[in-house]
């Protein structure tokens, strides 16, 4: 039989985890104690996650009983009348994350291309990579402050002008508040940029050198190679980057809570205040009591399920990417 072509050995070996427990035991026959300790730690993490889910579910239960699934599609949030529905926050969560994704993906991809190909000397590239990774280390509250002092005044300044001209388009409808969907989305864009950039960059770097050379040898230019070979090769990784960036944006709390305006009404206008599930929790939990606590727990449950699903899908896509490089 002819053997199958294989590329990237590094990725291959990186995927080569020991297949069974006896492999590990075979390598380290004497470290049983350490193994038990590690196992316990792993169990504790799973148990903590389970307990957390249980706690949230049980606290949310009265609200689940009272409102059922209609909680998701109802728009009122009136603690004084004990009426709760999170439709505006679900919409706000999805739209703010989607806007952030739409802005961060092209930007992050452009940076990833720039950092993965040899446009610049590698020392400069490494420095840029470091700075972008540093963005991820800035605390959320600092992003929030930056948004308040920079983004919000900008929107106040130019938002009305834009809505004056294009206000008939729903997303530009005025009046322009500073604390708004747009303010939160712009800051989210910056916050998910490192995730999207570094995962896309990894996907582009993992494209085997022979594919680049193959394209250049056929007389392709650098950009032809990037668009026709590198991006399609890295497509799955880029999709994973987008999904994980989206997941990160959905769960982001502090900066969003500081900027989104906490309106209980849903909106498509970029300039109106909106709300997200995470911002709702952050802003209301301190003063909540009675059924409101249960409703907030229900909202938290919803957020957990949404982010878990998104992250799971993202991780699966990423896994598949790494596998497919070994075999094509």
């Amino acid at each position: 039989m002819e053997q199958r072509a294989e590329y990237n050995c590094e990725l291959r070996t990186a995927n080569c985890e020991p297949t069974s427990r006896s492999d590990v035991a075979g390598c380290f026959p004497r470290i049983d104690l350490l193994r038990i300790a590690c196992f316990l730690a792993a169990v504790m993490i799973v148990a903590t996650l389970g307990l957390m889910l249980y706690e949230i579910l049980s606290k949310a239960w009265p609200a689940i009983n009272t409102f059922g699934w209609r909680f998701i599609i109802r728009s009122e949030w009136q603690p004084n009348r004990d009426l709760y529905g999170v439709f505006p926050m679900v919409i706000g969560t999805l739209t703010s994350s989607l806007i952030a994704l739409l802005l961060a993906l092209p930007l992050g991809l452009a940076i990833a291309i720039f950092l993965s190909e040899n446009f610049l000397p590698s020392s400069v590239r490494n420095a840029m990579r470091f700075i972008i990774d540093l963005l991820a280390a800035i605390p959320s509250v600092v992003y929030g402050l930056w948004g308040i002092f920079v983004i919000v005044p900008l929107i106040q300044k130019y938002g009305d002008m834009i809505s004056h001209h294009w206000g008939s388009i729903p997303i530009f409808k005025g009046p322009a508040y500073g604390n708004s969907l747009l303010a939160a989305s712009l800051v989210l864009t910056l916050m998910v940029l490192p995730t999207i950039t570094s995962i896309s960059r990894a996907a582009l770097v993992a494209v085997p050198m022979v594919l680049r050379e193959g394209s250049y040898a056929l007389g392709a230019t650098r950009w032809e190679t990037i668009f026709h070979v590198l991006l399609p090769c890295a497509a799955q990784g880029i999709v994973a980057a987008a999904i994980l960036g989206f997941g990160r944006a959905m769960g982001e709390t502090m900066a969003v809570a500081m900027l989104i305006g906490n309106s209980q009404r849903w909106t498509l206008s970029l300039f109106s205040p909106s709300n997200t599930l995470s911002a709702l929790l952050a802003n209301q939990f301190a003063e909540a009591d009675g059924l409101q606590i249960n409703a907030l727990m229900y909202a938290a449950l919803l957020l957990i399920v949404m982010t878990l699903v998104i992250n799971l899908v993202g991780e699966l896509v990423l896994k598949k990417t790494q596998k497919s490089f070994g075999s094509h």
Partner: protein
Amino acid sequence: MPNSFSPSDPHQATSSSATLVPLEPSFIEVKEFDFFYGKKQALFDINLEIPDRQVTAFIGPSGCGKSTLLRNFNRMNELIPNVSHAGDITIHGTSIFDPSVEIIALRRRIGMVFQKSNPFPMSLYENVVYPLRITGQRQRAVLDETVERSLKAVVLWDEVKDRLHESALGLSGGQLQRLCIARAIASQPEILLMDEPCSALDPIATAKIEELIVELKKDFTIVIVTHSMHQASRISDLTAFFYLGKLIEFDQTNKIFTAPIQKQTEDYITGRFG
């Protein structure tokens, strides 16, 4: 669909038969050529004339500079930072380093096959027409004709003609390497460079590629790097033996393998080192 040739097609005139007829055969001349990776010299004063429509094999122990010289013919080494050279390489008497030579145009005249097959993540069809696509060729008839012609030339047509639009990645290693050869000759280059094209293949697939190389030399000037002396003796007309970045001996293949002049060549082909 793949057979829909248009009679008015301008490409038709240059290639009426099923085999590939390059516009002009050419030869490569290497003159006093030195090559450096940074400060490290990889090639020393190479002088070599490669005739057209013959198979020229480069042999020698690993690290002796075979790939480096081969990758200079289409200036692939320029993808590596900090390389430099002295001396000259001419094709058809024109220096490939002449400022008027466009590197893209040069590479389009020279096909290259790599040690590991490198199909792009697209269909078989798109793989083969890639060199045409990047020149802006959109005419379906031309593309179809190119696919059929190129795949027939590498004896892959019958195996894959029903799955041209499926991903190329499902083929076996030998089929993939033939696909890459088809892609390398799709835009009718004059020269075909091959860098150990069989080293990742089993004996049966290797035999097929070797057969193919002998067939292709009717139409192309072929330069092949090989670590297998059997392969060199089976398929090449001329053999160049390199050692430590120097060209030790260059002659008819049968002379190199039966009556080498240099002691180093003899030592190498008799397996005393390398």
